[in-house]
């Protein structure tokens, strides 16, 4: 059940009303109801792994308490390691088994063995990458005495399964989510309306911007061998926007839906394309994953390698980003994606300019020329890595890039002057403009301080844009006869 479906509307309206009108007597009622709704939501999406989700919740709940209650350090760490092995093991088995299995045989074959292998059919449980990271972080935090474990199984279960974030994040932290579950939620008009705004904007990003960009990017990627360099470049441009609009739109909807239930999830995107260097970009892109990786991978790793100075830092950064890439899927393309981003950091380490997480042109209308140049350069660098996010194999990725950097890069792209492309460019422009205006705000469409007419005009206009330019599945229906 994706957020932009009628199914979800039918689900969310009664759940919202029951939550605030019937199950609002105490936090226990609220939590029982949220857990029920979340399990229903997960079951609806894919019932086959409900047992896995419940099992993982119980085991992590138990391990959290065990780690906390064990006095001796060594035994504590044994329980932590059990937890790490369990959670990472789940992920490795369900998501990466075939990747390593095939890799193993390919290495054997490289040494002259002639064994054959059959990939196993392993279904990927929905949301596994998200909820295992969340419980992993929980156990590590408990071990490090950053938080106390949740004593209450009900509250812990809501923390793991809360439906707005179970399928695709944000990857929440126990330290920010559990305390909210431990309190009774009270409805706030302002927060709810703000959530609705965020949903509307997410919907626009997803079904207008992302889907329209996809309409242009897909045919270019599918037929990349025959396209000119400039067309390929245009394809990566639209794909980069699509990727961003798709995921940030999804995140905004998740965060907005959660607000309707009085729970604040963490921000996941913070206008990342308005960044002037790669470190700045990653502070604003998929923030829940990046901060997770920073805390649980980069920090321990760079701490261990701290004697090696800059070399240690570079190794830590590159390892972290390779893992960031690999987290997205069991394919070498994601490894290359992460590796490229890791390499982009190297100059920053040497120049010592890691810390420019300033909002671009803060308090001003327009950025300086220097900032514009930096933002465009960075965007192009990122856009090129996104090719590896899109293609199915590394070799295709490099062929695609090779295609871009050919003589035909100076041709006019074949699809540029079609009405579809021009309309999409206008939509992307509008999207980016609103993002720019709201870049200092708490989310991309925080317009609560505008006057009432302007607000309503915005809502209605966005609805009209969604109605008209929203995705329609079967455009070529008459070709069916």
């Amino acid at each position, binding site marked *: 059940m994706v957020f932009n479906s009628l199914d979800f509307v039918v689900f969310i309206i009664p759940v919202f009303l029951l939550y*605030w009108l019937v199950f609002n007597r105490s936090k226990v009622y609220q939590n029982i109801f949220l857990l029920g709704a979340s399990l229903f939501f997960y079951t609806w999406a894919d019932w086959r792994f409900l047992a896995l989700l419940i099992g993982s919740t119980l085991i992590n709940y138990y391990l959290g308490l065990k780690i906390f209650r064990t006095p001796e350090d060594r035994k504590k760490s044994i329980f932590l390691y059990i937890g790490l092995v369990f959670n990472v093991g789940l992920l490795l088995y369900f998501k990466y088994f075939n990747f390593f299995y095939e890799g193993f045989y390919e290495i054997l074959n490289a040494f002259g063995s002639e064994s054959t292998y059959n990939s196993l059919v392993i279904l990927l449980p929905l949301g596994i990458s998200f909820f295992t990271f969340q419980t992993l972080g929980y156990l590590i935090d408990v071990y490090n005495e950053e938080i106390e474990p949740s004593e209450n199984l009900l509250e812990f279960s809501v923390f793991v399964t809360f439906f707005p974030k179970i399928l695709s994040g944000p990857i929440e932290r126990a330290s920010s989510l559990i305390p909210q579950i431990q309190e009774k939620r009270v409805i706030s008009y302002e927060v709810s*309306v703000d959530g609705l705004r965020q949903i509307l904007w997410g919907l626009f990003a997803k079904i207008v911007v992302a889907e329209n960009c996809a309409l242009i990017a897909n045919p270019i990627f599918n037929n990349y061998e025959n396209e000119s360099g400039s067309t390929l470049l245009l394809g990566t441009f639209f794909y980069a926007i699509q990727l961003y609009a798709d995921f940030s739109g999804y995140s905004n909807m998740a965060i907005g839906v959660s607000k309707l239930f009085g729970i604040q999830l963490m921000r996941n995107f913070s206008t990342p394309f308005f960044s002037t260097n790669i470190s700045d970009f990653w502070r604003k892109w998929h923030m829940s994953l990046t901060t997770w990786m920073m805390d649980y991978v980069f920090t321990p790793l760079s701490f261990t390698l701290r004697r090696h100075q800059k070399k240690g830092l570079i190794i830590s950064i590159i390892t972290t980003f390779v893992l960031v890439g690999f987290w997205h899927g069991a394919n070498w393309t994601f490894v290359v994606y992460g590796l490229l981003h890791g390499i982009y950091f190297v100059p920053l380490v040497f120049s010592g300019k890691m810390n420019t997480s300033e909002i671009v042109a803060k308090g001003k209308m327009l950025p300086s020329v220097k900032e514009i140049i930096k933002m465009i350069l960075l965007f192009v660098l990122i856009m090129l890595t996104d090719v590896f996010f899109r293609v199915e194999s590394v070799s295709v990725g490099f062929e695609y890039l090779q295609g871009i950097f050919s003589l035909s890069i100076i041709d006019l792209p074949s699809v540029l002057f079609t009405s579809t492309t021009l*309309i999409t460019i206008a939509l992307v422009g509008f999207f980016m403009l609103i993002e720019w205006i709201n870049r200092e705000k708490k989310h991309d469409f925080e317009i609560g301080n505008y006057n009432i007419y302007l607000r309503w005009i915005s*809502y209605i206009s966005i609805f009209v844009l969604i109605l008209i330019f929203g995705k*329609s599945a079967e455009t070529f229906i*008459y*070709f*069916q*006869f």
Partner: protein
Amino acid sequence: MKRLLLKLCLFFICCLAITTFVLVEYGGNVDYFYQKFTTPKAVSMVIGDSRSMQGIQPRVINERLKELKYELPIFNYSLTIAETPIGPLYNKSIGKKLDETSENGVFIISVTPWMFGSDKNNDNNKGEFREADRPPHNMRFVNMNPNYEYLFKNLTYFHFKALFRKTSTMHKDGWLEENNLPTNPKVFDEWKKRQGRLFDKMIRNYEVSSLRLNSLDVLIKKLKKHGNVYMVRMPIDLDFVAVENSFYKNFDKDMSTVATSNQIEYFNFNVSSTHTNFKTYDGHHLDKHGGLEFTNILCDSIIRSANTVK
């Protein structure tokens, strides 16, 4: 909470108002079928798939058949092969659209071999039909303006972007006017090839269903109570006729049998000896010009036949 719900309602009312406006004003442009389900019940009808949806123009029939004193206007209730193959489901929907008071209507059933094809995985006798979850079979109301039921159940069919381009218009009489016609012979060839692939796919996945054939008989008998029924096989390119024959060898024979047993006319425009090429945009869909010409010729046939009977 109250304030929130009130404002939300206000917002949704605004959205609904805008949507209604678009549907009422541009309903024929933003969806291929929408207008079929907003119009009142019909006294006379064209039944068929996309060939007749685009190729048989009710306005021409209304003009030409005046002299025969049929109850008019005629309404084109054809959709496409995906939605309206002959069968109990389509029959039921025709029943909903038909004005039961009609006594002297004219009913034109455009038949193609594919309209008798059922998915090999479906058991028609168990009530499994490939068209079941498509409009109009997933709807209750087919004569409602504006038709929100159609909108919500078939949202994915809509293409609101077309509001500006108006490449196609579904007219109130049920005729789909397609304006995006290939001027370049290359485009025509490409479109025709695409249709060929669709035929191949159907040949692989479909088989002729005796239940559907039987439904045709039921349909004719029902419609005869409300007026005169004519069957027609619309003209297509001869190479496509060959493809169709490979799918359903005895098609013409079976159609003639049904027609004779019900004492109605079957006009076959694909007999190789008398075959003329009408203007199509992909080898089997008449474009608006070819359709105009064909509808006139069809009317000639109907008038001739009506006069001989008298």
